[in-house]
């Protein structure tokens, strides 16, 4: 596979808010012309504060919403869901893992059905086949056979996120969009899930678009970093370049706001406090 798996050119998304009884109609520019490119097996992290357009961009990349303008290429093919439907082959190339593992699993669906559903819809595999694939996938994300017939409410947050990841991988996607996949989990579980994601990336040659506001997580997992601020990409480059030499003032503010908990920085802070 040559060329980037995912490429976006000048992606724009506007939301039109209808004028009500008291207000005039408004247009909100959620994403203002963002361009990016991700190669196979790499991870692009999109960082920014709440409401900066990260999740809107995620929905556009995942082909849930259409972009207002701009072009999106997946595996070199142009995709536009506003014109004409989406073929199953395109659909299965991109999958998503949501932020909140408590809302992203259907409470009335057993885990086995959660994992089997994508196959049931998109393939003609037999029930026995689907079952075996689902079992294998459960193993891969660190769960067991005994979880196959359980309901989501019987799992912890970390386990649910593993299930959500397993569901996303059932169709063998080439691109996985991770919309703050660990921000709802506590710290030790975050590390487990991030390691799982890294292992799966190696195993399946996956390409990740990782959306986050947690810079320590981004530093750990990303190859490239894009910083978004009010719908614009203010900084875009490799992880090392962005972290060592931030160009935009917003990026510097963002880095400065990250709490540091290593021993040296704590000593330095105490020294400053004592001196004052």
């Amino acid at each position, binding site marked *: 596979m040559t060329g980037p798996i995912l490429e976006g050119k000048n992606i724009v998304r506007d939301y039109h808010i209808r004028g009500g009884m008291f207000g005039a109609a408004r247009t909100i520019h959620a994403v203002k012309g963002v361009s990016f490119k991700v190669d196979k097996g790499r991870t692009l992290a999109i960082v920014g504060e709440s409401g900066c357009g990260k999740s809107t961009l995620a929905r556009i990349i995942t082909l849930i919403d259409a972009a207002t303008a701009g072009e999106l290429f997946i595996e070199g093919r142009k995709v536009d869901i506003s014109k004409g439907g989406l073929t199953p082959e395109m*659909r299965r190339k991109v999958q998503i893992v949501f932020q909140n593992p408590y809302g992203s*699993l259907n409470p*009335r669906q057993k885990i086995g059905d959660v994992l089997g*559903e994508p196959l049931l819809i998109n393939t003609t595999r037999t029930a026995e086949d689907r079952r*075996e694939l689902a079992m294998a996938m459960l193993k891969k994300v660190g769960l067991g056979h005994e979880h196959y017939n359980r309901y989501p409410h019987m799992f912890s947050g970390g386990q649910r996120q593993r299930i959500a990841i397993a569901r996303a991988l059932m169709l063998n996607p080439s691109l996985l969009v991770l919309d703050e996949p660990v921000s709802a989990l506590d710290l030790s579980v975050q590390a487990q899930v991030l390691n799982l994601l890294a292992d799966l990336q190696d195993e399946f040659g996956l390409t990740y678009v990782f959306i986050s506001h947690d810079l320590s997580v981004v530093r750990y997992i990303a190859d490239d970093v894009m910083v978004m601020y009010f719908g614009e990409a203010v900084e875009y480059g490799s992880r090392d370049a962005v972290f060592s030499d931030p160009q935009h003032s917003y990026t510097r503010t963002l880095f400065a706001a990250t709490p540091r908990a290593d021993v040296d920085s704590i000593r330095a802070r105490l020294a400053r406090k004592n001196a004052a």
Partner: protein
Amino acid sequence: MVQTTAIEPVSLDPSRRRRLADFWYYFSENRGAVIGLWVFVILVALALLAPLIAPHAPNAQYRDAVLLPPVWLDGGNAGYLLGTDAVGRDMLSRLLYGARFSLFIGVVVTTLALVGGIVVGVFAGYVGGWVDTVIMRVMDIILAFPSLLLALVLVAVLGPGLTNAMIAIALVLQPHFVRLTRAAVMAEKSREYVIAARVAGAGPMRLMFRTILPNCMAPLIVQATLSFSNAILDAAALGFLGMGAQPPTPEWGTMLAEAREFILRAWWVVTFPGLAILITVLAINLMGDGLRDALDPKLKRS
């Protein structure tokens, strides 16, 4: 594979059993609901066993025993436990057979209204936009009429009879289901698991009826129970007005209507059908309240 098939029944069972146990725990907190459930079970049993336990045929007329009082009054006859009506038919047998009609009406009307309401409501809630607006305004118009009056008009158009009465009542009860379903669907539609199913490639039909609908059922089950008693009541009212079941059908409302003129001379001819309606409706309503407590998470005291 061998191992997993061995595990399956064990791992499947606890969740279902636990959900049932959970349900029963919340349901049995409400004493009235439990009583209502038992009364309802007894009523169903009586209705099913009517041909076996009824002492007489429901329409058999005994000319020598007209307007006989119940057995515990002077002049009562042990052959007719609850007395006889104006043409010598045994009240107890007629009431037992009447239970069959009433429960049948309840089941048919509720099913019709529920299925119709769910289909229309899911559609309105999922599609939204002008489709939703049009459907909901039509439902508002139906709701604006007093329900019995509208049923009466519909029966007048369709012609009197039990079947037409049931259709009319189902039409009148349907908007409640449409509203409930629409509201629940609109709340569920934007949840992440629905989007996840969409990303997995689920079409609109699958999203509507397999993904969203099962998560909207709790309020609908409650509303269905309450509609059940409403249907029985409305059918009895239509019967009383001569628009529902036609005599000599032993339907409770029709029995009331036939007995109207004997209300002063023979109180039992009017009282027992009335009591039967009262007890049935009360039992089902109590049961519905209990169901609401058990199924509606907002009312759970935990």
